[in-house]
């Protein structure tokens, strides 16, 4: 028994990603078609060339017909998957395993979500399985509980920590300002973010990711076939997923300063990829910055910072666009919003651009020396969440 991964057995040969915004004039079908059209063009394949499909959508449709109908697929398998906010990454994970198994030659993962039509100002609540005694708070309030607990545990002045959180948002907005696919494209400084209307605890409106409509897609083949399609594929180094058992709700040992599900997923992913020092081996990371304390804590859970020191690394600019380990170079959930089914694939799209040297010059980072990127999603709340970690690379052993 064991988690062995499929390092270097599957390659990504094409990707597409729509702009993320309020697409009043685009349906779920339109967004899926746009993402697939860009991905197939990028891979040099046509829709009938794809043998099997995985569709990630949390709430924009049920069953594979949600994708088969707009794409007019004929006689093809389509599996619709959902795994909270890691839904897009989960679709890709399944497509990769299908190709690695030998079952199919060419598979596609498509993520799509139309959130703005729901009529809610935030994500419509997921019905988390519970016994009727679960917590009832906004997601922002749930994640805001992390900040005072972190400040207390590590002796950080809460006023100082509040500015560190704002700096995380400011960094992501600075990156997103350079990205034509991002929804919010204005730079925001720390003082401006701190002055925004309060939402919960230390968090202001700009400590919270927005919502958006969007779609993204990736096409995968066996690694040995990749060069038939492209000179610069990305190889799948690791795919890891953890569904927490919710014990953080019952167990007072859970202290609200870390997310064990993310630590476990990262540990498994690093083992699959053979990474021992992620801070120095990864060229970049796209992480799930749903709220600013989330990104802070993730820098420790993913092994980029020592426990209790992520706030200092954030302040020192380690995760800035041209820092030692750039995080959310495309602007993150902060700049894009979070169409649940699409976000994980949107993160991979940024790795696709950056690792292949195709990111626009004003946000391009140097990935030549390291050649590895990480994407991360989480879904749920502190104490009960799911987490995905994927690692992608330009070279193949």
């Amino acid at each position, binding site marked *: 028994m064991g988690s062995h991964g499929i390092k270097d057995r599957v390659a990504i040969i094409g990707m597409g990603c729509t702009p993320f915004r309020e697409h009043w004039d685009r349906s779920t079908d339109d967004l899926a078609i746009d993402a697939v059209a860009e991905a197939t063009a990028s891979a040099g394949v046509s829709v009938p060339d794809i043998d099997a499909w995985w569709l990630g959508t949390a709430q924009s449709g049920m069953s594979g017909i949600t994708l088969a109908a707009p794409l007019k697929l004929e006689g093809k398998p389509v599996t619709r998957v959902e795994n909270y906010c890691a839904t897009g990454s989960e679709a890709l994970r399944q497509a990769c395993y299908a190709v690695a198994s030998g079952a199919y030659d060419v598979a596609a993962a498509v993520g799509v979500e139309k959130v703005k039509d729901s009529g809610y100002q935030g994500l419509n609540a997921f019905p988390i399985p519970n016994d009727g*005694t679960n*917590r*009832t*708070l*906004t997601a*922002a*309030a749930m994640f*805001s*509980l*992390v900040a*005072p*607990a972190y400040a*207390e*545990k590590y002796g950080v002045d809460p006023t100082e920590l509040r500015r560190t959180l704002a700096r995380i948002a400011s960094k992501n907005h600075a990156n997103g300002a350079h990205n034509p696919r991002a929804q919010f494209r204005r730079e925001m400084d720390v003082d401006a973010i701190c002055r925004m*209307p*309060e*939402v*919960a*605890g230390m968090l202001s409106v700009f400590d919270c990711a927005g919502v958006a409509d969007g779609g993204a897609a990736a096409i995968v083949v066996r690694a040995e076939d990749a060069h038939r399609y492209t000179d610069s594929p990305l190889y799948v180094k690791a795919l890891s997923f953890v569904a927490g058992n919710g014990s953080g709700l*019952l167990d*007072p040992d859970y*202290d*609200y300063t870390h997310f064990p599900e993310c630590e476990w997923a990262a540990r498994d992913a690093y083992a699959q990829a053979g990474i021992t020092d992620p801070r120095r081996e990864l060229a970049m990371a796209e992480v799930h910055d749903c709220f600013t304390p989330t990104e802070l804590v993730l820098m420790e859970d993913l092994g980029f910072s020592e426990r209790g020191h992520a706030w200092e690394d954030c302040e020192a600019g380690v995760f800035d666009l041209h820092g030692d380990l750039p995080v959310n170079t495309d602007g993150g959930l902060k700049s894009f919003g979070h169409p649940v089914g699409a976000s994980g694939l949107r993160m991979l799209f940024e790795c696709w651009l950056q690792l292949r040297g195709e990111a626009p010059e004003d946000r391009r980072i140097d990935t030549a020396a390291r050649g590895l990127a990480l994407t991360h999603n989480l879904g749920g709340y502190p104490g009960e969440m799911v987490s995905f970690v994927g690692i992608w690379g330009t070279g193949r052993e």
Partner: protein
Amino acid sequence: MARVAIEEGYFTVPDDPAEAPRLLGSRCGACGEHFFPRRQVCARCLHDGCDDVELGPTGRLWTWTYVHVPLFAKKNAKVSAYGVGQVDLPEGPRVQALLVGGPDDFEIGMEMVLDLETLRTDDDGNDVVIMRFSPHRAAGAHEGGERP
């Protein structure tokens, strides 16, 4: 006028309004673990047959937030913001509950005490009450607030 709980089975409603209410919890007959709210099967050792016990009424604040955009209070125009805390009971369980006070009133490690607030009056004229924790202002309440 009588006071009645908004939901049976979660907290006591003492006849004497000066008396602190208590939380209705469970204690495992096998391993001794405490739980709130009540449960039949122990979540730690899976023993079937927890005993009813009363917990609190005091606890220590583990972490907290102050919600300016209440999700569930949109139907009540009188509620614009509220505190929520994770309160550790002396028996062990950590309870998430409403807090009494404003955003400057809370500090991690402070002692909290359970009380009841009247939410509305029902058709029979009873005061319908909910539970919440408020900072315990007694002398020395902050002593021993160090975290383990």
